[in-house]
């Protein structure tokens, strides 16, 4: 019978306690090793972490159970002696499910009553939750992610901290892709409300009836299907900031309700007579010309005055001159690292093409073009043929480009698929089409796409396409 089944702790209570039961209740992985570093016992938490059950791991060398990154180089057990203090190091393990798990390993000697070394005890702490958290907190502030040296963008960046210190409503205007969302979040992060929630809602994304309930909440039974009370985004943003993007798409009757809220900061959920006082700062954004909409009777003038306390206009990329080069380099560096490509650079022709392109979709379009090029480029240098066809087409025509109307961004893409603005979606569609054309044969699909089989495999894995 294995030793771990008969091991007991005596003296703690009237009757001995089974050691394994005791260890199983500890939420950190624990393994007991003999002097030859073979597993004598492992608790339930470590079983969950490694995938080994005690019967399988019993008397197996610990390096075949833990499979830590330290095993071959600097095993913490080798640093432990009978007189030493516990050794604590960070490492990662590869478990039976073939997952790499970051862990903190603490190794200590096990001594008998006479002080002789009889083995070792290691505690293995799963750091996955901590790693996720630190990745979140390590993100740079949104203000840092607004890149630009041009006078136009510097003017915006300079006023953001000052705007953040006030509690006034802000209206951000600018063409699509100029970074309105980034600026809104930067204002929130730099304000005294930074510890509160930042709640974003797109007024153009939901039908009118749903939008009202989404914004203001509803009372149980207010309408068919309202089976629970719903707080609404305004209440969720209490003590924080509510960011209403595409405010120009807000229906007229909701404009009235928003106006009423801005007057007294009291909210009446749908179907409720009871009002709630909500402390939120409102930031609104739009790419539309609100003055023109007021003139046409599609936007309330009094709401515009309410929102227009502080107005921030983001310049289009075509007016940011030197920033185009800066942004090209910035996205090239970031995306190369993200897609684990070698240090890429633009050749002169590609750079010339990119610098002369007008970017009607602004920074978002520039980023997408760079992402396309980084994905398509297999070498060290991005050449003209790695750029999207429409960019090259623009250069070939070399004529004045008529920017698409703001209401209909990037009409060269199929109108039915606005989400295709993102390269990932386009690439996924291309892969799916190629695989269908190749009747499921991956090597033929890779040939159609002009990629190697490994590239196709890597991209399919990244997009979760199996």
């Amino acid at each position: 019978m294995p030793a771990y089944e008969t091991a007991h702790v005596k003296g703690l209570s009237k009757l001995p306690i089974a050691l394994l039961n005791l260890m199983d209740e500890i939420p950190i992985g624990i393994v007991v090793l003999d002097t030859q570093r073979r597993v004598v016992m492992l608790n339930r938490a470590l079983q969950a972490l490694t995938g080994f059950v005690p019967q399988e791991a019993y008397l197996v060398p610990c390096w075949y159970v833990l499979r830590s990154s330290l095993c071959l180089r600097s095993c913490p057990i080798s640093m432990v002696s009978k007189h030493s203090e516990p050794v604590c190091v960070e490492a990662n393990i590869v478990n039976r499910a073939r997952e790499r798990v970051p862990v903190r390993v603490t190794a200590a000697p096990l001594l008998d009553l006479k002080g002789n070394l009889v083995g070792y005890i290691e505690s293995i702490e799963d750091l996955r939750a901590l790693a996720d958290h630190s990745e979140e907190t390590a993100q740079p502030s949104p203000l840092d992610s607004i890149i630009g040296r041009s006078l136009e963008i510097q003017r915006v960046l300079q006023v953001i901290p000052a705007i953040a210190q006030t509690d006034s409503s802000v209206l951000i205007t600018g063409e699509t892709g100029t970074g309105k969302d980034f600026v809104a979040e930067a204002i929130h992060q730099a304000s005294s409300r930074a510890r509160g929630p930042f709640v974003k809602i797109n007024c153009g994304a939901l039908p009118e009836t749903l939008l009202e309930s989404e914004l203001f909440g509803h009372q149980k039974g207010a309408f068919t299907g309202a089976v629970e009370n719903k707080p609404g985004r305004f209440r969720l943003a209490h003590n924080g900031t509510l960011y209403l993007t595409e405010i120009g798409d807000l229906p007229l009757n909701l404009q009235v309700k928003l106006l009423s809220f801005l007057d007294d900061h009291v909210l009446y959920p749908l179907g409720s007579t009871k009002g709630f006082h909500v402390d939120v700062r409102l930031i609104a954004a739009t790419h539309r010309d609100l003055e023109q909409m007021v003139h046409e009777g599609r936007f309330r003038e009094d709401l515009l005055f309410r929102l227009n306390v502080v107005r921030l206009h983001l310049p289009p990329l075509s007016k940011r001159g030197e920033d185009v080069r800066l942004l090209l380099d910035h996205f090239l560096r970031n995306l190369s690292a993200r897609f684990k490509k070698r240090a890429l650079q633009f050749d002169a022709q590609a750079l010339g093409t990119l610098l002369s392109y007008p970017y009607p979709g602004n920074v978002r379009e520039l980023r997408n073009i760079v992402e396309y090029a980084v994905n398509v480029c297999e070498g060290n240098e991005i050449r003209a043929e790695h750029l999207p066809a429409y960019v090259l087409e623009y250069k070939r025509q070399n004529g004045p480009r008529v920017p698409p109307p703001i209401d209909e961004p990037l009409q060269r893409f199929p109108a039915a698929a606005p989400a295709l603005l993102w390269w990932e979606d386009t690439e996924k569609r291309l892969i799916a089409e190629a695989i269908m054309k190749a009747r499921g044969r991956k090597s033929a699909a890779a040939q159609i796409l002009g990629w190697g089989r490994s590239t196709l495999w890597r991209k399919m894995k990244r997009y979760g396409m199996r």
Partner: protein
Amino acid sequence: MKRILIPLWGDDIAPRFDTAQEVLIAVAEDDGRISDKRVVILPEASAEGLCNLILHERVDEVICCGIEDEYYQYLAWKKVQVIDSVGGPASVALERSAAGSLKSEEILVARGRE
């Protein structure tokens, strides 16, 4: 005939695919005989480097212990059979593989008490 690669740690199978600094490359004939065997020292421990070596050496089967799913799936996709979670002496694993009796998750060490 099949070409077999085993990441090594001394004479044993390395606990991790990505941290091994040397590998055993062997040829097992259809009758179970090992006709060729050599140890290759790697310039650095790297899972990507090892995958490249496996493809370059036209290896049919990899015997290893811990391997991340990304590399396991990649090799499987490249039609390389991976027998993972195997521990113990590389020579024993090689013989068992040549005889066609090695399975994943086999720990080939004596587990008796002294």
